[in-house]
Each structure stands twice: as structure tokens, then as C-alpha cells.
């Protein structure tokens, strides 16, 4: 594909949190023209850790790469007019202003629909814009714990080692990003029928999105069992400590188990005919893991993975970010692209997990400087 799939689409985002910003990032990477409408002091995301060596927010840089920045001070008439002008040109407006503050800023559902009837208006909040908890606030840790997966982690080796500790969140902004992905999907779905029904209001909750990706727990509840982080660990395999790091091992199919026995060098314990039965292997999981861990403890991850993949045993190295950056697979795929991050220089930035027409997507650039593409009522901010 010679052009990006969403070329020509115009998106405006008012994002103070990760979910809304990530929705814009996904659409932007797929070709949409994204403008961040920022307050005079910039979105709070510019001040969010982790920070690059020169104090630049790595989080903001990642989320805003390729976007434009326009300052719109909604406390003033000029700023509102400027935002209105942007929206009148836009196809999609993404906003995470808390519900209670929207009306005063002219950003409520009815006002936007009245002024911009063909706009797809996407609200992205932790608990959505509708329902008894619409006013509740949440950071990523709260999103993960309100949507199920928070209570179900860790599993495997970590919960075996620390059974009494508090449940553990997934690193970074996993829960909020699910809200962003759902928002991108909702925006593109609403846009699909715009010619027939006009613009509409899309109400996204990161909690709903986190719950959707955690649907399996609800599935199991209906099947009659309640998941718990201790019980849902794989009976054997899982996170295996090796001499120089960790690997993941998961043999769900019979032929994969047979490959594993070969990989282990066909030791006597593994040749026990009773272990040919998958249920027996599950029952004796801890015993199997003792043997597997003892075997792995004196070997290096890459040696095991290389030999195992030849035997069709599903194995993966737990890779550090530095290892991923230089991995031949990711290099081949064009997962990273050097972009200019002001204050930090040229850095490899993750582009997108999608290829279209056999080609990687491309970023238009790094994160924008505040107001780089326009200012409305900037005088007030400087006053």
C-alpha cells in the first residue's frame, strides 16, 4: 500500500490522559492528521514519567509522535473559537475532559452535536460518560483493578514465590491503553455510517475495554468456576528461571510435550508412560516443574529457545526493552523508526504493530513542541 489507510482523515484530540492520547496515536499512525488541542501550559502528559535523560516525557513522546500541537485556551473566547474552527474541519474529536466540566467549556454531547452535526465525538474516560460511576476518577492501577485482570495477577512463578503479596498490575498503562484501542475502533465504526446517520457520540470507558479483554474470566464464571490468581497458574512450564534470565514455556498440545521430552534429553522421569496423559501431567505439575527448573538452571535462555523451537516446543525469551530494540525480527519488520525528540535527539520509536499491504507504517515525526502548529489566546497564557 503506497499510502496509509487513514490518509485524509482529520482528528482533533483533547487528551490529558493516556487513553484518549493513545486513541489519537493509533489513528495518526494509520494515516490520520492528528491535532492535539492543548491548554496553554500543555497537556499534563508532557509532565508524566518516565522521563528521557533531558527531562522529556518518554510517555508523551511516544503518545504524541507525529501529531500537531495547537494551543487552545478554553478559558478564553479566542481559544474556544479556535477549537470550534478545528472541529468544523475535523472528522473525529477525541476528548477526556471530565463529564462534570464539559458543559461549562461547551464540550458536552449536546453542544458538540448542535455545532458539529457531522462530527464523530468520542468521549474517553475511565468509567465512561454514562452510568453511576461516570464521575469517578482513576489512574491505570484503578482501571486494572476495576476491570478484573488486576485481581488475577500475578500468576505462575511470581505468585508461587509471593503468595501473600498484594495482586499486581500489568506494567505501564495497559488498562488505559485498552480504552484507547476501543476508542479508535469506536471512532472508525461510527465514521463508517456517517453518510447515513451523521455524526454521533461514542462513549468509551477504559474499564469496559479492560473488561472486554478480560472476558475469559466472565466466560469461566458462567461455566461454573471463579478464577483466582493462584489457581489459574499453568500446572507446569510457565516462567522458567535459567542461568542468564527467564524463558516462557507452554506446551498445550501432545506433540509439544513430546518435543519437550526430547529437548530435556529424554530423562528417565519424563519417560514415565503415565505422563503421556495430559491430565496426569497437570496433576503432577509441581513435580514436573522441579525437574524442568533444575535442568534449566544451568543452561542459557537462548540455547534452550534455539533447540526448543527446532522441536516445535513453544518457548520465548523474556526480552528486555534493550533486547527488543536490537532483535533481528523487530528490525526486519520495521517496528522502530528513528524520530527527532526535541531535547533528547534522534531516537528509535515504536511505530505500529500493523502492516498494511506488506509494508510497515511510518511516523510523520516525533512529538510536537507545545503550540508548534498554532496558538489561540497564547497572549493570555504569557500574561
Amino acid at each position, binding site marked *: 500500500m503506497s499510502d496509509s489507510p487513514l490518509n485524509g482523515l482529520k482528528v482533533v484530540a483533547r487528551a490529558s490522559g493516556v487513553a484518549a492520547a493513545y486513541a489519537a496515536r493509533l489513528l495518526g499512525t494509520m494515516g490520520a492528521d492528528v491535532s492535539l488541542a492543548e491548554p496553554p501550559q500543555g497537556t499534563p502528559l508532557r509532565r508524566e514519567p518516565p522521563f528521557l535523560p533531558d527531562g522529556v516525557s518518554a510517555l508523551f513522546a511516544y503518545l504524541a509522535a507525529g501529531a500537531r500541537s495547537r494551543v487552545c485556551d478554553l478559558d478564553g473566547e479566542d481559544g474556544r473559537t479556535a477549537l470550534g474552527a478545528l472541529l468544523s474541519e475535523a472528522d473525529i474529536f477525541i476528548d477526556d475532559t471530565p463529564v462534570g466540566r464539559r458543559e461549562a467549556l461547551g464540550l458536552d454531547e449536546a453542544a458538540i452535536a448542535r455545532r458539529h452535526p457531522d462530527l464523530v465525538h468520542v468521549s474517553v474516560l475511565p468509567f465512561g460518560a454514562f452510568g453511576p460511576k461516570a464521575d469517578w476518577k482513576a489512574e491505570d492501577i*484503578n482501571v486494572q483493578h476495576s476491570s478484573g485482570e488486576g485481581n488475577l495477577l500475578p500468576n505462575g512463578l511470581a505468585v508461587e514465590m509471593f503468595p501473600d503479596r498484594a495482586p499486581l498490575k500489568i506494567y505501564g498503562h495497559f488498562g488505559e491503553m485498552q480504552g484507547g484501542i476501543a476508542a479508535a475502533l469506536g471512532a472508525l465504526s461510527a465514521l463508517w455510517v456517517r453518510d447515513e446517520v451523521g455524526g454521533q457520540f461514542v*462513549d468509551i470507558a477504559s474499564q469496559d475495554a479492560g473488561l472486554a479483554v478480560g472476558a475469559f474470566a466472565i466466560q469461566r464464571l458462567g461455566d461454573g468456576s471463579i478464577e483466582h490468581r493462584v489457581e489459574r497458574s499453568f500446572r507446569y512450564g510457565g516462567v522458567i528461571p535459567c542461568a542468564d534470565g527467564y524463558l516462557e514455556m507452554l506446551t498445550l498440545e501432545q506433540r509439544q510435550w513430546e518435543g519437550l521430552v526430547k529437548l530435556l534429553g529424554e530423562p528417565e522421569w519424563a519417560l514415565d508412560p503415565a505422563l503421556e496423559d495430559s491430565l496426569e501431567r497437570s496433576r503432577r505439575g509441581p513435580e514436573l516443574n522441579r525437574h524442568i527448573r533444575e535442568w534449566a538452571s544451568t543452561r542459557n535462555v537462548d540455547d534452550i529457545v534455539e533447540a526448543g523451537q527446532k522441536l516445535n516446543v*513453544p518457548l520465548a525469551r523474556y526480552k528486555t*526493552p534493550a533486547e527488543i530494540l536490537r532483535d533481528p525480527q523487530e528490525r526486519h519488520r520495521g517496528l522502530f523508526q528513528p524520530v527527532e525528540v526535541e531535547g533528547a535527539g534522534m531516537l528509535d520509536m515504536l511505530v505500529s*504493530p500493523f502492516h498494511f499491504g506488506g509494508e510497515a507504517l511510518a511516523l510523520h515525526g516525533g512529538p510536537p513542541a507545545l503550540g508548534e502548529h498554532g496558538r489561540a489566546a497564547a497572549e493570555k497564557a504569557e500574561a
Partner: protein
Amino acid sequence: MVKPLSGIRIADFTVHNAGPFCTHLLSQLGAEVVKIESAMRPDAFRKPHPVYGRMGPATFDQVASTKLSVRINLKKPEGAELAKQIVGISDIAAESFRPGVMGRLGLGYEALKQVKDNIVMLSVSSSGQSGPDSHFAGYAPLFGAWGGLGELTGYEDGPPVEIRHVMDHTVGMNAASAVMAALHHRRATGQGTHVDVAAREVAASLVGEALLLAAAGGEPKRIGNSHPGMAPHGVYPAKGEDRWISIAVRSDEEWRALAGLIGGETLIADARFSGVASRLANAAELDRIVSEWTATQDANEASERLQQAGVAAHASWTTPEIAADPHLHARKAIVDVAEPDGTIRAAVGVPMRLSKGEEIGIHRGTPKLGEHEDYVYGELLGLTDARRRELEDAEVIY
């Protein structure tokens, strides 16, 4: 008002979780999804799953709901031809086999383009359709391990953590957004395309800021439940067995609200916690103080009080609590569905509300194997009963 994707048809070859979750989302948004299956290799939900305590086929399967089912034995050349006929009347063909399998079946992108020149083909795989690792088989925990999400998740002093089904399903939701982008592109240009989604790259995309930090020479590491810019920030014990509450304090104002609930003026005035830098420096002591208080509190009641005071907090919810929540029901994030015997159970809806698409969501349960062949083979493809019997006898429709 209609479901937004009404009129879109998907030939669905996907298996396991990631691909089926993608087409499940699109089906809830109105696409007609024809799930192509075979009795020779029944889907996991049609078999017992003793590891998960299910001793028979699932009576309801989340990711198969709202789909139509037809049988095709793709190993037979006539089976591949029949599949192509379905692709010929579809907008999207979705698959999640190992790279190369569709090509060997005669159903690769170029072959599908021959029967439908503007087809959008989606391929979901562990490492993508190209590159030295493209042949790797994988499951959710392996995607997380390859992509860095697993390495970075964990207690500071513990091992990395397996990311489970949420990993598969976020791959599916990502894929759904990419497919929608491809449909928009088709509408604008008349051209179809091949969408290639790599699960390990999705895992990496969810820690993009950590990868950028590493590119600048930093070394992001596991930090448990803590946060580099917030304290207190964590999961604290609540009253009762295995009960927990998550609390995150971003600003001084929020800290004063929390401190007021815990210890009144004395704690508010405590200089050790007077600004974010001091709170981060004294996070261990702060966590001790917060834990001492939360341990006396009911997790849900404390969350309500904290929210009223302006502090981000939520109980660490178990699955039954989620299934019973009025907020999630009001949003149709949780919906009630009926089993074939009439039993009502909770299911997860599509994670959005549309002002002009209130009908979105699950509207049909799990199809029986081949349940919709009269519609698909008879009405849509116009196969005669005699022809269908021939194909059944030849184990093509099988």
C-alpha cells in the same frame, strides 16, 4: 439507527483467541461473520477443557457468539474452493494460522484477490507474516515475553509475569481497529489490502514508552505496583480475606484528602509527605500508614468515600463482583445472555456505547457446528440441496 457495520460480511477462518475476538467485536458492531469450521478440527470451545474444569463442550462461548457457523474441510481442494466462494461474497477474510498455512491451502492473499479484488484480508500471527521468527508458534504468554510486557510486569524483587488471555484479546481489539482502517481505505480508493497484525508487536506497543526510554540509554525495570510519579500508589490490604483496594494519589490536594480520612490534621501537616518528591522519598513509610488504615476498611465502602473526597480509588474486584455491577450493566459492558436451556449467564458486551447504534452487542448465542448452512450455502451461495449432499458425502462440507 442500525448497527454501524451492517452489510459488512466476514469470512472467518480464525482459531484460538486473538483472531476470534477480533471478529467477535466486529460481529457485535453489526458485521455478518461466517465462522468456517470443521468437525475434523473442532474449535477449542467445542471440546472439553479439563485444565479449566470444563468436562464437556462450552454451552456458551464468548468469542463465537453472534457468529454464523458453516463446516468446510479445508484440507480438500473442493473445500478451499467452497471457502473461496464465501470470500467472494465477503468484504473481509480473517485468519490466524501460522504464516504460510493459508497459502498452502490455496487461500493466500493473492488467491483471495482473484475471487474478490478488493478483499481486506486480516492475518493475525505471533510474530507477523515476515522476518526470521515468522514461523514461530506462540500463545499469549509468549507474545508478552517477546514484546517486553512480560519482562516489565512483576514485583521489583521477583520474576517476570505471564500475561494471559488479556494479551490475546488486546491483539484482537487492535486487529479490529486495523481492519476498520483498511475498510475506510477501501471506501476511499476502491483497493483492498492485506492487514498483518503481529501479536508480539502488540505486546511491545503497550510498553512503547519503556522502549523509547531504553532507546535513549535508560533501563526500565519491574516496579510492582508503584509509580515513578505518584505516592501513595498501590494495592493495599482491605478488611476481609484476600480483599484489596487500589489507590493512586497524583496531587497534593488528593494527598490532603486521603490524609484527612486516615489521620486528620496531624497527617496532613506531616512534612515527610508534604509534596510529591517527599512522598516518593518516603513511599515505604507512606505505604505502611495507608495499609494500616485500609486494613480496617471495607474495600468498596472505602473506594466510595475516597472518590467522594476526590481520590482515585477502586476495590480490587473479583469476577463475581464485576458480573453483578450496576454500572457495568447500565453501560451494557456486562450483559445477560441465555444458554440453550434458558439459563441466564453474564457475558461481556462490546466496549462502547454509540448514540446512534444502541443495538450493538451480542444478539445470538454460540452457533452449533454448521448451524447456518441453509442460509450461507443455500440462500447466499445458491447451492442446491443435491450439491450440498454431494459435498457432504465427499467430506468437503464436514
